[in-house]
């Protein structure tokens, strides 16, 4: 058997070495492009998921969110809870928020939304939404008559958007806010932010001090966000929080964002599957055609080889080895191309509505697709080789 493989290898090498170079290069190029297609789209999907996750953690909810139990509206003793949590090693910081519905009024335009309150210095540690400021400044701890607005509330001056926003609020403008409890306040717009993240552009932010004066409460919170030093340890900290005696609802970022991220990722995953199937079909078709044409053109030669005593399997394996060669070369070139594309996109990420996305490369994905491509290509190459080599010797030689 080893000798048979040696002869197959010999025939394959000579065929590749002395065959049509143009065809070989084209075949390798096509395989490389198919391979890039196999891994590029899933890497973008993974990048989208990673962006969504990062934005959830960095802009929306931190690593862990503590919320009131179902029968309560607010968390009591929010400061005490935060102090306990902040003492744990691995906790970077906590930020408590009040959340309430409100209506914004500006220049005869109305917009509904929600107002979140923050302790600006705590919030800076836990989330990064402040980095999304596109105009103005971040809140100071003592600001009581100033507000930060998301771009979905302010709109852009000059853009006709109907009633979906306030038609172009600028930094320094004054807007009226009617809170859900009926309190009306006028705020100066201190900053405008645009994060293109999950919903956050629809929020407004005021200071905790201001919100407590509106709601008439203190040392409570609608939610407490917790930032951890290491992603992936959320479950462990949930347990630790419970051991600290925190009885409120504790959710990880994954649970908090499951609906939004999950459905988006599922849709993309379906597209990934379709794209993968199409790519593999393309690979099968290309390899099949190339080997089919090759074997049909060499049918007489194959007949001669069989006539002089070269075994049929040796001939078939020589074509299989050629397919393997094209596959490996195509994959190598594909990896190089993919490397160039990912390097470029790392520096110049793709702008999606939900944020900037870079391709995420997973080694298991690459390995999986290498194996799939090789397996399907081998089958595609084996079939025409087997069909031609199986033909009767006399018919192959003389037709």
């Amino acid at each position: 058997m080893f000798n048979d493989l040696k002869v197959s290898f010999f025939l394959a090498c000579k065929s590749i070495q002395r065959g049509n170079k143009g065809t070989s290069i084209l075949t390798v190029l096509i395989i490389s492009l198919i391979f890039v297609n196999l891994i590029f789209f899933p890497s973008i999907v993974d990048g989208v998921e990673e962006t969504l996750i990062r934005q959830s953690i960095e802009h929306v909810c931190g690593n862990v969110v503590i919320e009131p139990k179902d029968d309560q509206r607010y968390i009591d003793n929010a400061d005490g809870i935060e102090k306990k949590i902040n003492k744990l090693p691995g906790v970077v910081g906590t930020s408590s928020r009040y959340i309430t519905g409100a209506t914004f009024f500006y220049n005869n335009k109305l917009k509904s939304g929600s107002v979140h309150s923050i302790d600006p210095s705590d919030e800076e540690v836990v989330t990064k939404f402040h980095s999304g400021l596109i105009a103005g400044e971040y809140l100071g701890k003592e600001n009581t008559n100033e507000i930060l607005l998301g771009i979905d509330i302010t709109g852009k001056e000059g853009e006709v958007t109907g009633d979906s926003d306030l038609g172009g609020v600028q930094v320094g403008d004054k807007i009226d806010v009617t809170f859900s409890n009926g309190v009306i306040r006028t705020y100066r717009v201190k900053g405008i932010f645009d994060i293109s993240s999950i919903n956050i552009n629809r929020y407004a932010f005021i200071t905790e001090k201001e919100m407590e004066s509106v709601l008439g409460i203190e040392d409570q919170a609608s939610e407490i966000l917790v930032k951890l030093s290491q992603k992936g340890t959320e479950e462990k900290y949930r347990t630790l929080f419970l051991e600290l005696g925190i009885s409120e609802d504790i959710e990880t970022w994954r649970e908090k964002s499951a609906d939004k991220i999950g459905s988006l990722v599922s849709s993309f995953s379906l597209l990934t599957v379709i794209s993968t199937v199409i790519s593999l079909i393309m690979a099968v078709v290309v390899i099949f055609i190339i080997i089919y044409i090759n074997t049909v053109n060499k049918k007489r030669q194959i007949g001669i080889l069989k006539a002089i005593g070269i075994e049929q399997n040796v001939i078939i394996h020589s074509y299989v080895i050629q397919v393997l060669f094209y596959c490996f070369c195509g994959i190598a070139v594909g990896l190089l191309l993919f490397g160039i594309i990912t390097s470029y996109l790392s520096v110049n990420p793709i702008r999606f509505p939900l944020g900037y996305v870079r391709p995420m490369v997973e080694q298991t994905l690459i390995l999986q697709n290498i194996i799939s491509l090789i397996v399907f290509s081998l089958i595609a190459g084996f079939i025409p080789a087997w069909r031609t080599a199986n033909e009767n010797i006399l018919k192959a030689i003389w037709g």
Partner: protein
Amino acid sequence: MGNVHVHALKGISLKINKGEFISIMGASGSGKSTLLHQLGLLDMPTQGEILIDGKDVSKLSEKERSLFRLTQLGYVFQEYAIISELTALENVYLPMLMMGRKKQDCINAGIDILNKVGLGDRLDHLQHELSGGQQQRVAIARALVNKPKILFADEPCANLDSESSRQVLELFKKLNKELEQTIVMVTHEDWHMEYTDRVIHLKDGLI
């Protein structure tokens, strides 16, 4: 190797002795190529036996026939039939490689036999770099490299000019005389008879 008994076609019985140079002649459709294919195990009879050296080769499996062709028989086809991607030397030693011989031994044997057929200076030439007569001589060398018991040649001069044809027939004659190579050749040219020991005429599948 003493006798080749073939019961083929329409009841042909044929005996070929070791060292004989036989030509099989006949009009088109007389069955001469069919007879050669049967003798060379490229095809199997629908009825009857093929005995080579007393062994009934018509009962062999496809794999066994392939091995028998590799080790015991040699072929020269009408249209040269050398592999276009292999050099003259590689074409010649390919059957030896298939038998599991060491690469260097194959190369040495190939060089030796190509020298014998007068192509010692064409070892690294590919098919398109060889004339018709040279390609046919490569095919003859390939057929002989495994020292077959019988060499079958199916109209080996059909696509050659008269000079090249003479060279090929001279070579056959030389191999037959010097190496006592048994050769069975199908031809339709009368003047080829002068090179052979015996002529078998076929007509309508009968001798």
